[in-house]
């Protein structure tokens, strides 16, 4: 395993560990404000310094990992839950179902990048649930397309024909035969989409329309630190670097999985 992948794995492992066990660490409360101590540089008492309201930055970063992973996995879960069956059905039945599929996907994909997510949070308002929904909406077409393409390819295969000849009903064929075989490519796409989802969640929070203000999400922290960034760059450097490293790790892992498991996905980064 190349060193870059070991690095990626280590970072993700650390992230997961921190996210799950965060509250168990002996760190100050990430929400506890202490204006007297505001805007301090890293010191013995606050290893990464404090933010504009005196909250310990390290514990906020640790707490933020939970939110980032929540957004990432949540959005991917939404995408899989809706996109996977949709694409599966479209690929299996073809015809009218497929045509409807293509139209709906076209509509979802008609909006560039974060515009769709922005539209959703504009309507539903801020909050982490709405954020997951908004980002998830963007991942649905990705999963739908992949599962449709894979299903189409598998439908012609002999074992599917055999299953149908033996009298398997359509949903049985889909569930027992097609689904287990498309899991591989879907996992690759899922890992890359998690990175994208976290990024979009952070972007929306940075713009102020994602999570609610006091939530220690990394993007929101960047936004909060921005007015003070000139004199206190650590407010911006710390969450930013954390985000970047997490994204790098996820991208490395996703690329590695893709190269190892399926060389077909050369262009599929979206």
């Amino acid at each position: 395993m190349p060193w870059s992948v070991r690095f990626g794995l280590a970072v993700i492992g650390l992230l997961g560990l921190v996210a799950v066990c965060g509250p168990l660490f002996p760190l100050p409360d990430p929400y506890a404000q202490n204006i007297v101590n505001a805007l301090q540089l890293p010191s013995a008492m606050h290893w990464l310094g404090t933010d504009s309201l005196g909250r310990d930055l390290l514990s906020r970063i640790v707490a933020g990992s939970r939110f980032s992973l929540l957004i990432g996995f949540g959005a991917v879960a939404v995408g899989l839950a809706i996109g996977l069956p949709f694409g599966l059905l479209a690929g299996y039945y073809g015809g009218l179902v497929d045509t409807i599929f293509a139209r709906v996907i076209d509509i979802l994909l008609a909006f560039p990048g974060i515009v769709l997510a922005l539209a959703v949070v504009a309507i539903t308002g801020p909050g982490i649930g709405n954020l997951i929904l908004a980002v998830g909406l963007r991942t649905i077409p990705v999963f739908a397309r992949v599962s449709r393409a894979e299903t189409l390819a598998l439908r012609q295969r002999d074992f599917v024909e055999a299953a149908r000849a033996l009298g398997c009903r359509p949903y049985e064929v889909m569930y027992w035969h097609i689904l287990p075989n498309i899991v591989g490519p879907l996992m690759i796409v899922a890992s890359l989409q998690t990175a994208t989802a976290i990024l979009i969640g952070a972007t929306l929070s940075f713009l102020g329309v994602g999570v609610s203000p006091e939530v220690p999400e990394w993007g929101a922290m960047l936004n909060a630190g921005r007015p003070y960034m000139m004199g206190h760059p650590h407010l911006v450097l710390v969450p930013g670097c954390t985000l970047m490293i997490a994204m790098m790790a996820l991208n490395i892992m996703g690329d590695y999985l893709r190269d190892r498991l399926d060389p077909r996905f050369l262009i599929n980064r979206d």
Partner: protein
Amino acid sequence: MILRYISKRVLYLIPTLLVLSFVVFGLVRLIPGDPVLAIAGPDATPEVLEEMRTALGLNRPMLTQYGFYLKGLLVGDLGTSLRTHQQVWSEIGRRLSSTLELAAAGMALSLIVGIGLGIMAALRPRNWADASTRIVSLLGVSSPTFWTGLLFVLAFGYYWRLFPIAGSGGLRHLVLPAFTVSLTSLAFITRLTRASLIEVFSQDYIRTARAKGASPLRVIVHHALQNALIAPLTVAGLEFGRLVSGVIVIETIFAWPGIGKLLIEAIQFRDWPVIQGLILAFALIFAIVNLAVDILYGILDPRIRLE
């Protein structure tokens, strides 16, 4: 035959846009809360509210409202901003050129520099230039746009005051925002060009060309590039979409007066007509660019036209 291809694609655009306008319209109507209440304020009497509703046409059935909206769209009337009470189309129009300027500059940068770096990296695989390009491009792909933007603001606006970091008004103002917005796409295009070119280099016809005595330059430019560039150019359309969404963030960081910044402000003020109009505008821009890329792709690669 090219004309048929183009006209088919253009015709396909119209129903998509229609459905889009309906979706956007419906979405905005889904907002919880009474927009009239939001405009008039909590102290307004029921009569005033009812009057406003009639004036804005909000008490008609939704389909009728949509009909009016559609009619308005056809003449270019997108409604009035709830915030500034100006026409939506004029608000958008004033800022649209700034955004397009930024997006075009970013796209040009990412294509030119990206393809250039990709070529350079492909020509010397496995040495330090290639490795460092790959690391830098990994960083570029993973770094959030707003993060690099803030870094640039810190670096060039504060520590070394080389470039202005706010507002538009000249080439110097364009440098930082355009570079920031191009970074992710640049990294991606570099990787893609490199991979694509390496694959093309291993093909037989390249070997034949070299065996026939063609100079390395001619081999690269005339034979290899044409085919290797198909992949990056295809992606360019997708990347433009990503660029447009990146522009939204960049405009906020660098105070660039474009439609991205307008969108964020509109969302924060819940200025529904502007939000509606802007979403349509973004979708339209995206659709047009994709159409252009499709047409270009059809011209470059004759195999596509036969579909």
